[in-house]
């Protein structure tokens, strides 16, 4: 960071101050995980990278360490000039300072290595220098309370608490408690980890420190930190992804409109994009990274319209509340008695998928507030459209679930995925799931957890190509743990009394025993399109009805049409 950035940083700090908030900024050297497009990265010792994406480590000399401390101090100076009120030092998840602190990555024999005191020397020196400059401006630090690196000889939790005490002694004013590294083999913040799972680490930190303790890590709803603060286990509630999903979250909590918070679904798309240096996006928040762009604003409609939305799933509901907020008269129909569309079934899959339903609760609250009229238990027919003759029809009817064309797909033991998820279908002990995208994986895991022997067969070349890489490794692990066999790039050639025959892309034929075949394949849904067009009514098709994809695409489609219609 060089001085030319000070005016920009000042604009940032000023904007935060204008909203009566405290402006903090973080100092970070990415260390071991800092090199992707470079030849090398820097670190204490040349420990090979576990993740192939990162470059080999070049060992830092003592002169490099001194230089790095100097650069942190210079950066602090710029932050203070720009008007920031809080400086945070990053020492977590595999970044430089954590590399020095951890016995996994620090194998030095000089005074910056050895026991935990030696490994902390860099941090202690750096904190002291930054604090000297900051004076009354508080300095925080993020350090791991549990690195979750016991498989590769990382710090023990006891050593981590020593690092906390040493940082406090060196002068930090706030401790941000974290868990895990990018190289940990355990999941930490994905949806499969229940909210609040890491609060015990904050509690442990409190027992070792006098300074305030803050924490994020799956504290997605205010009740969790609120309770922990009340019980003296935490002092400050941090949150990251919840505010990517809904930047107004804290304001809504303060105003008591929590039901209008768009909940993060802990999918880690944002992280996956960050790691690949791709532009920021959020799975669930269509406005993320477009907040500056007037095209994404919800502006009053130039002409108020009477709109029928067919389908009260995630796409239809999102479109409904946005269009209604703009002043349109919006009627949303669904043949089911319940809101949510196929998310009702999708949220029954294990490993945290129940949280997907949060998007439905959010958009329902927004739609009710915006005055959307609900017509549940009402199937939209061509006659209904001709009778109502709205200005606009939005088809958000969800996908059509399709069976394959091979012999045997018409047998009674071939059942649709939705019937399996909502418990209507009878499923045998040996099951083949047809479809290797997320819906197939979800239903396969549900059945495998019931003790069934499950095989996933799908046409896609790679399993779960619709799941981002920062989450997919979890599903691959769960499939393995639950002994689910997978055949990608394959067709079902035939279904018989005993099971199925797979034909792989290169022509091998494999018999699989199966009592039940569950179909998860989907295609676009053209229903009602003709009648709308024949009557000259403005038509939009969104979500899986347009192209079967996922919750994200449904919400993004819904928002995009909601602000346009």
């Amino acid at each position, binding site marked *: 960071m060089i001085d030319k950035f000070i005016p920009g940083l000042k604009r940032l700090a000023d904007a935060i101050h204008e909203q009566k908030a405290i402006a903090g900024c973080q100092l970070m050297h990415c260390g071991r995980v800092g090199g992707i497009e470079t030849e090398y990265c820097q670190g204490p010792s*040349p*420990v*090979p*990278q*576990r993740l*192939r994406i990162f470059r080999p480590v070049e060992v830092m000399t003592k002169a490099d360490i001194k230089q790095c401390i100097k650069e942190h101090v210079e950066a602090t100076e710029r932050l203070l000039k720009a008007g920031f009120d809080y400086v945070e030092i990053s020492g977590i998840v595999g970044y430089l300072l954590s590399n020095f602190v951890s*016995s*996994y990555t620090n*194998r030095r024999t000089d005074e910056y290595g050895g026991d935990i005191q030696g490994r902390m020397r860099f941090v202690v020196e750096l904190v002291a220098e930054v604090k000297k400059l900051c004076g009354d401006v508080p300095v925080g630090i993020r350090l791991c309370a549990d690195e979750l690196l*016991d*498989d*590769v*000889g990382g710090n023990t939790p006891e050593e981590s608490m020593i690092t906390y005490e040493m940082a406090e002694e060196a002068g930090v004013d706030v401790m941000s408690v974290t868990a895990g590294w990018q190289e940990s*083999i355990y999941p930490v913040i994905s949806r499969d980890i229940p909210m609040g799972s890491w609060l015990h680490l904050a509690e442990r930190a409190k027992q070792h420190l006098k300074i305030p303790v803050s924490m994020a890590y799956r504290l997605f709803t205010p009740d969790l930190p609120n309770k922990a603060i009340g019980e003296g286990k935490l002092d400050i509630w941090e949150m990251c992804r919840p505010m990517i999903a809904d930047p107004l979250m804290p304001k809504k909590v303060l105003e008591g409109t929590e039901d209008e918070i768009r909940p993060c679904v802990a999918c880690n798309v944002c992280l996956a994009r960050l790691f690949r240096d791709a532009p920021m996006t959020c799975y669930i928040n269509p406005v993320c990274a477009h907040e500056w762009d007037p095209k994404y604003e919800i502006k009053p409609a130039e002409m108020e319209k009477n709109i029928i939305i067919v389908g009260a799933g995630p796409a239809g509901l999102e479109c409904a509340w946005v269009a209604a907020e703009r002043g349109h008269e919006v009627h949303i129909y669904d043949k089911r008695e319940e809101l949510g569309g196929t998310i009702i079934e999708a949220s029954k899959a294990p490993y945290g998928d129940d949280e997907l339903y949060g998007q439905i609760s959010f958009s329902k609250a927004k739609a009710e507030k915006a005055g959307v009229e609900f017509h549940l238990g009402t199937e939209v027919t061509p006659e209904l459209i001709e009778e109502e003759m709205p200005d606009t029809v939005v088809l958000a009817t969800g996908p059509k679930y399709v069976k394959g064309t091979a012999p045997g797909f018409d047998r009674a033991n071939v059942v649709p995925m939705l019937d399996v998820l909502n418990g209507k279908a009878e499923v045998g002990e040996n099951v083949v799931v047809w479809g290797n995208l997320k819906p197939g994986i979800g239903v396969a895991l549900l059945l495998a957890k019931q003790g069934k022997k499950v095989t996933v067969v799908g046409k896609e070349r790679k399993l779960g190509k619709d799941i981002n890489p920062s989450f997919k490794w979890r599903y691959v692990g769960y499939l393995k743990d639950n002994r689910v066999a997978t055949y990608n790039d394959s067709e079902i050639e*035939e279904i*018989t009394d005993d099971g199925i*025959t797979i034909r792989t892309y290169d022509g*091998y*034929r*494999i*018999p699989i025993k199966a009592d039940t075949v569950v179909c998860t394949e989907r295609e676009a849904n053209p229903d009602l399109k003709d009648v709308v067009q024949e009557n000259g009514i403005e038509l939009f098709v969104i979500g899986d009805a347009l192209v079967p994809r996922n919750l994200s695409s449904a919400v993004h489609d819904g928002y995009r049409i909601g602000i346009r219609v």
Partner: protein
Amino acid sequence: MAVDPQKELTKLHGALGVSQAVIKSTFFEWRQTALELLGPSSDTLDVVLKFWEVAGVDVAKNFFPMLNLRKGQEGLILDLARALAGTGIANGAVVRVEKGEGPLEALIRWERCPWPTFAKRYGASMKEDLLGCDKFLQTIVAEANAFLGTDLKIETQKAIPSGDGVCLRRLYK
């Protein structure tokens, strides 16, 4: 049409054999290309050993997610021995892993290995074949040591290219 499992397995087994053979041919074709481009002053053994070092570093990375210090040194040695054996099996060798005499050692026994046959076919010496294989395995062990901070060693006690009938390697601390 019902599947004939025997026919499918025969086809698959044939394809596996061909792809295993292609891997070895490709190595020797690459070796010949490198030597021709480097010219007569190049040292064949240097080139070959460098190849096996590069391969060892890359293959070792595949093992990092499964090496686990929580299993203790004994478990780690057995897991790494199995991983090393797997590199041979994938190439069509018959390899077995046994516990060694002490708790902190494992024996890896190549009862059959196709590499020396290919080396002969392409005119490479048995010495080169043996040293190449040693380099590959030593590099993997060195990378695992660098990754985990351990101090494991591997030594070759018998070798098919030396006429011993088996390759026997001891992985130990």
